[in-house]
């Protein structure tokens, strides 16, 4: 029903566009004085008048009609005033299920009556919607086409509408982000109501596997995030130790030394590396790298776990190479050729020119790339879920297993979960911490990148 209405509106707007354009083109205007706008703008303007108000109305109607109908149905349900909020929710979902035809038990007469009420309201609602949309389309088209006059500034009004539309689009992203943050904060606050924030922020023990139901046997539980955060930073540090030198050196080689043919082959390959799904890197880490790392560790006489920080961090580092390399590449390419020539003309070798002129000039861009990569590393989930461990340990031995914030979030949320339990809620607190860290890193990174853009 609503789908047809959207189609109808689009069609009406299309027709209005043609009518408007035709009217704008007609001799009546052109004859007297110079027309303000070209016919196409008159057409677009008429289309906007025809389509947009009806469209907005329809969206709002669809958004609110269910809750309004629910309210009316419940309102007329006998004895509904005495029900609590969640009981009302249960009741309304039962009524809706019966209305949709899925009946689990014989409905009571009250329910049957409510279902009939619901159905009549729904029918009324769709007729009302149809009528209002049709009226809005008709009135809009009439006004839009009638507005066309010789000096009518259709260009400006189209321009304005487009601006509004763009503003709306940008708001969508912002509002969604705000919504995500708010829900995260809300759940995290629930967690902090059960576990003191100081314990979470400074505690050195992380043992979240507490009992969810009364019949489960489990430990007392401890929610100190420091060991988990430590694991995240250990794995990220290992990853950066692999990615930074490799990425920067490969960028230098590609921009400054490699010939055209080599570059043409290697750059797309690097981009393929960036396109590999992280879960595939995860396989690689767990099946190939982790056993290698373990046997290496054992052969040099170090305690080595099957899943080590080194394996996860190393593979994550490889994943981040194209990131750092392509951003550094851009930074080097942004240094003008004239500056290189200036250095060569003073008798500097290529190496000296790169070290003393190019690297300092490109540094802010490179730092920006590194920070972005670091924020990816901190938030990376799949590789560590597969290749890092589950037990939170504070160890500097890279051959041992560690766990990370993302791994813990995943393990806390799978299996039994109940949203009034600190075990589940802890995931949101961890998520909030992760969000704050990556947000901070991204802000700093964007700032440094912008600073270097201003330089030339």
């Amino acid at each position, binding site marked *: 029903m609503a789908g047809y209405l959207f189609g109808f509106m689009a069609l009406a707007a299309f027709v209005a566009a043609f009518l408007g354009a035709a009217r704008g083109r007609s001799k009546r205007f052109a004859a007297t004085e110079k027309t303000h706008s070209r016919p196409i703008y008159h057409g677009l303007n008429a289309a906007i008048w025809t389509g947009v108000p009806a469209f907005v109305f329809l969206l709002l109607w669809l958004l609110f009609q269910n809750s309004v109908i629910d309210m009316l149905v419940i309102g007329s349900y006998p004895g509904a005033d005495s029900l609590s909020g969640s009981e009302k929710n249960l009741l309304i979902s039962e009524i809706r299920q019966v209305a949709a035809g899925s009946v689990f038990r014989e409905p009571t007469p009250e329910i049957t009556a409510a279902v009939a009420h619901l159905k009549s309201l729904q029918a009324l609602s769709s007729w009302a919607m149809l009528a209002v949309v049709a009226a809005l389309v008709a009135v809009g088209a009439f006004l839009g086409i009638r507005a066309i006059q010789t000096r009518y500034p259709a260009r400006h009004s189209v321009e304005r509408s487009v601006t509004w539309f763009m503003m709306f689009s940008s708001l969508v992203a912002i509002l969604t982000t705000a919504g995500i943050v708010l829900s995260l904060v809300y759940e995290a606050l629930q967690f902090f109501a059960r576990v003191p924030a100081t314990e979470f922020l400074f505690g050195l023990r992380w043992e979240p596997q507490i009992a969810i139901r009364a019949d489960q046997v489990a430990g007392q539980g401890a929610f100190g995030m420091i060991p988990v955060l430590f694991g995240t930073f250990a794995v990220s540090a290992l990853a950066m130790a692999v990615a930074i030198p490799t990425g920067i050196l490969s960028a230098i080689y590609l921009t400054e030394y490699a010939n055209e043919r080599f570059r043409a082959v290697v750059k797309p390959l690097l981009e393929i590396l960036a396109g590999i799904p992280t879960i595939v890197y995860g396989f690689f880490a767990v099946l190939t790298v982790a056993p290698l790392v373990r046997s290496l560790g054992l052969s040099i006489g170090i305690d080595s776990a099957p899943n080590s920080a080194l394996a996860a961090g190393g593979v994550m580092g490889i994943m981040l190479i194209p990131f750092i390399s392509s951003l550094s590449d851009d930074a080097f390419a942004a240094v003008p050729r004239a500056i290189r020539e*200036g250095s060569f*003309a003073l*008798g500097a070798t290529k190496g000296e020119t790169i070290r003393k002129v190019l690297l300092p000039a490109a540094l802010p861009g490179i730092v920006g790339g590194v920070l972005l990569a670091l924020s990816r590393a901190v938030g990376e989930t799949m590789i560590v879920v597969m290749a890092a461990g589950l037990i939170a340990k504070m160890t500097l031995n890279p051959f041992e297993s560690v766990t990370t914030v993302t791994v813990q979030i995943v393990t806390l949320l799978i299996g039994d979960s109940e949203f009034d339990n600190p075990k589940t809620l802890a995931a949101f607190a961890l998520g909030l911490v992760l969000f704050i860290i990556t947000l901070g890193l991204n802000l700093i990174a964007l700032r440094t990148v912008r600073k270097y853009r201003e330089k030339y």
Partner: protein
Amino acid sequence: MNIMTEAAVEQKVQAGLNEPAVKMKGESVDVHYGEKQALFGVNLDIRENQVTALIGPSGCGKSTFLRCLNRMNDTIDIARVSGKITLDGEDVYDPKIDVVELRARVGMVFQKPNPFPKSIYENVAYGPRIHGLTKNRAELDGIVESSLKKAALWNEVKDRLNESGTGLSGGQQQRLCIARAIAVSPEVILMDEPCSALDPIATAKVEELIDELRENYTIVIVTHSMQQAARVSQRTAMFHIGYLVEEGATEKMFTNPDDKRTQDYITGRFG
């Protein structure tokens, strides 16, 4: 065969003695960019402690010839240079020659000022540092100061040596680039249209500077401005679509050129 009288020989030798020595020499220089030939058998002498101006319409190969003199064309993959170019009689394209040392002896200033994105001090100190010309900071300070003085920039920047070189005005940037080139004590300075990005006042300053520098350096300057060539140079070489048309004392070139093309170019009939 024309046999010269003793007196005529004497006269020639005398004239040769008055002429300054030849510092750099190009002999049948050809340059190709890929398939395209940009210079055809150019023979040109650059004389010591003189300013040699290269003139000619755009695209005639002035910059190309200039960049052969310090082998800057090596940095262009598709460029190929043949023929012979000597500096004090040594072939600069000899494989035994270290291009890094050559460029320390033959410095260059570019059309667009290209200071490094570093401080004014570091811009000038760059060359002496990479060539290890100084033993300590005091010596380096000395070179920076004297180079900036020779480039007539010292008074304007002495209080802000630590500010970025890219923050100077265009004319100051170009003088900074000249100071940077002077700091490695080159013997020859090549300038490729050094004033084309500058306003008239900055141009006058740089021209004045070029005239002073002639005392200690050999200078080759590419210029589009006939007046500039007349003002600053002692010798002028006229290029046309890859050929050297004519070369001689600037005064003669501007008053009584041998070649019709030179005359047309100087009087503004083409280019």
